[in-house]
């Protein structure tokens, strides 16, 4: 392979570029990124970056020394527009083309939007530019903020806004936020964090529309209520960036379909990160985006699936001064048992809690609020368990 093109210059794209060099690829390495920025870390955007506790320099994922070592051609601020049917040419938005022998698809996902998003004061939070714009507006004085969506981005953003002294309401269409991730019992406990943080949580009603002519003035709920708002933050999930692949031969269905080794229908095209549906699952987790590239690059360079990746799902969230960590694969039928700490006033104790999800006497997942040490132990045991179980099957 003489040329490999990494499409996407964020976390998983950078990790893929690193892996290519680490695994001995010494050919031409091209990295295409639609944002003008060098690779940066997104998780702080809703937290320390938004509150002003940390700046842009702390977001950088790489430095000048590493950039030199990677010896890549960085095509930043230009969007990939297509991939030819053989997967040998990447078409760019500015009309240029890149002829390539291998492709790593790492185009991530985009924030889902609502009709009315063009009104001033309406934000999504996915990119550095999104965060810059929201941060500037939040710094302009105390405002009424409505966050649409009670997922992790929504909760973290609401927490940051409340911490800055704004008047915050979170609207969640489901009866409780985070039920798919945490199950109903623990979702209820984590929902208590909003109340403890002084944020109103409105659940069980969708959004009918946004009010305002030039700037947003309110959020109209499906049940008829109107929430006045100066700032609206839409945190209703993300859509994998696969539009540019429409004319390719790759199978697309809520992501780029790959086998367990991140390899697509074309052996010289692999996919990693938020855009990749690996072995039937698409995970929008930071950890997946950092773990998949090693295996994807190995298989790309081998020309076939020589190794598979099935890491234990892990995610974390910092909100209202609490750190939530979750690892494992839970089913709705699993039972939940709090093994450390507890619940006070429908929210985690000040000292946090540790909860185990169990099925047939076996631990399937673990949730921690401010209990990093036992969480880490449980996560490692789960990781080992997965390996052992899979080894026994195969």
């Amino acid at each position, binding site marked *: 392979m003489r040329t490999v093109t990494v499409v996407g210059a964020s976390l998983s794209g950078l*990790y893929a570029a*690193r892996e290519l060099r680490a695994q001995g690829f010494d050919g031409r390495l091209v990295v295409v990124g639609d944002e003008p920025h060098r690779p940066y*870390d997104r*998780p*702080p955007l809703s937290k*320390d970056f938004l509150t002003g506790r940390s700046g842009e320099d702390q977001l950088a*994922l790489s*430095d000048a020394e*590493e950039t030199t070592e990677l010896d890549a051609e960085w095509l930043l601020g230009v969007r990939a527009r297509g991939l030819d049917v053989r997967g040998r040419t990447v078409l760019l938005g500015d009309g240029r083309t890149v002829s390539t022998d291998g492709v790593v698809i790492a185009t991530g996902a985009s924030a889902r939007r609502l009709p009315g998003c063009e009104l001033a004061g309406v934000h999504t939070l996915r990119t550095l530019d999104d965060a810059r714009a929201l941060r500037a507006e939040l710094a302009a004085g105390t405002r009424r903020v409505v966050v649409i969506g009670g997922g992790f981005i929504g909760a973290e953003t609401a927490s940051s806004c409340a911490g800055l002294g704004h008047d915050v309401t979170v609207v969640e269409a489901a009866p409780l936020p985070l039920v798919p991730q945490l199950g109903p019992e623990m979702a209820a406990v984590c929902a208590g964090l909003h109340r403890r943080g002084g944020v109103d949580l409105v659940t069980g009603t969708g959004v009918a529309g946004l009010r305002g002519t030039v700037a947003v003035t309110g959020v109209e709920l499906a049940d008829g209520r109107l929430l006045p708002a100066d700032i609206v933050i839409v945190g209703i999930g993300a859509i994998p960036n696969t539009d540019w692949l429409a004319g390719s031969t790759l199978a697309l269905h809520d992501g780029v379909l790959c086998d367990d080794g991140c390899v697509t229908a074309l052996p010289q095209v692999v996919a990693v990160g938020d855009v990749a549906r690996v072995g039937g699952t698409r995970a929008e987790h*930071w*950890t997946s985006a*950092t773990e998949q590239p090693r295996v994807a690059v190995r298989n790309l360079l081998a020309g076939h699936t020589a190794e598979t990746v099935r890491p234990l799902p892990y995610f*974390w969230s*910092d909100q209202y001064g609490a*750190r939530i*960590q979750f690892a494992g694969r839970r089913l709705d039928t699993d039972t939940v048992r709090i093994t450390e700490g507890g619940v006070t006033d429908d929210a985690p104790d000040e000292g946090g809690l540790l909860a185990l999800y169990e099925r047939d006497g076996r631990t399937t997942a673990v949730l921690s609020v401010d209990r*990093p*040490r036992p*969480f*880490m*132990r449980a996560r*490692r045991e789960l990781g080992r368990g997965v390996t052992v179980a899979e080894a026994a099957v195969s």
Partner: protein
Amino acid sequence: MIPVCRLDDLPAGESVRIDTTPPIAVFNADGELYAIDDTCTHQDASLSEGWLEGCLVECPLHAASFDLRTGRPTCLPARRAVRTHRVTVDDGMVHVHVASEVLAEVAAEEEGTAA
């Protein structure tokens, strides 16, 4: 020199965090005592709550690993070293000698030259 705790209260495999600015973590790694800055250089997490294995501690948030002897990260996502501090035991009491910024920088430069 900052008193940390009795040596008896820091058995092998355990760690303790002291509330200096910035905070420092002290580890008993199989009988050897080490002190490093407590906050992971990648993102805000306490290394004193990390996973201790030999002379390495793994961050509880994103699994960055640091060598307690040098403070250097041994894997991503951390790229910058944490400061290391000298630890002594006097009369059964563990003390940390905080490395001054200037000394740490000089040490880093010297290492850089040597490398």
